């Protein structure tokens, strides 16, 4: 009923067209850069290796993705830090 009411007022949950657009945006970035999931995984492992020299990171909380930044592509990494390593 709520959904029906929302429909009358022209509102509803996220329409499927919007979901498709968000999904396609991500796919196209990868297609255009010809970046495979395997390559992203290797990149992620290398980044972890380098960063662990300097700080303690939560390896399972790391998210790495490509995103559209106006007309260029950005590599976005979200890396949770447990603690800094000192004295290195």
């Amino acid at each position: 009923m709520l959904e029906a009411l929302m429909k009358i007022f022209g509102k509803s949950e996220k329409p499927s067209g919007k979901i498709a657009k968000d999904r396609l945006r991500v796919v196209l970035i990868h297609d255009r850069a010809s970046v495979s999931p395997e390559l992203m995984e290797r990149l992620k492992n290398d980044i972890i290796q380098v960063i662990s020299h300097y700080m303690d990171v939560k390896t399972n909380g790391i998210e790495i993705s490509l995103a559209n930044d106006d007309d260029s592509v950005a590599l976005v990494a979200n890396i949770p830090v447990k603690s800094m390593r000192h004295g290195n």
Partner: protein
Amino acid sequence: MSVRIVITSGKGGVGKTTTTASIGVGLAQRGYKVVAMDIDTGLRNLDLLLGLENRIMYDLVDVTRDNDPIPYKKALVRHRKYETLFLLPTSQVQNKDAIKPDKVEKLCNEMDKEFDYILLDSPAGIEEGFKTAIKPAQRAIIVTTPEITAVRDADKVIGELGREGIDDIKLIVTRLRPKMIEEGDMFDMRDINDLLAIECIGQIPEDEAVIKATNRGEPVITMEDSMAGKAYKNVIGRLFGEQIPFYKPPKDSFFTRLKKLFGML
């Protein structure tokens, strides 16, 4: 000199051949001499869409083979009603490797003086047949539906065309459903433009007239009262740079939505 346009899509079943047939007729209606070439060897259909399937004597394989090729003029099929429109059919029996890209390009060079337009109807995919179809082309028309899969494949094809040096690329979106777009369940033209960034010259609504036209072998552009027919007519105008606004279906009002909810519409 002829203008050579490849009609391609990546994904199959989005309306490449329907579009080729209607553009061919539309250009002929304006008095241009047009040859529509079917490059989809093994799965030919342009003959059916133009209603010329019973008049084929020779095909693209006969014309481009190494040993004792047939002159292309013998393979051309003239349209009964639009007399400046010709079909160059492909083979239904041979496989796609029977035709080499170089041979088709050479053939286009031969036909160059005789025709104003050479339309190349590409097969789906980005394999050999696609490469054969794009090689002679100066311009490209990409056909897509507003579906996530078709738009993705269209993007891939745009990339391939760019690598081949074709930068005059226009877009035609088929099978649009205004009601789904209004409800947010289908890409609208702004979404597609955001994603592909290619100039759009056609927005063809989903229309039963397209199926009826195919049944009869008369391209839908000849059904002048149909929505799809009008939309293709506008495509021709935009090909010539005419400023034609896109049709916008009227939006449902609050009361229409209310009536729809209670099954009154």
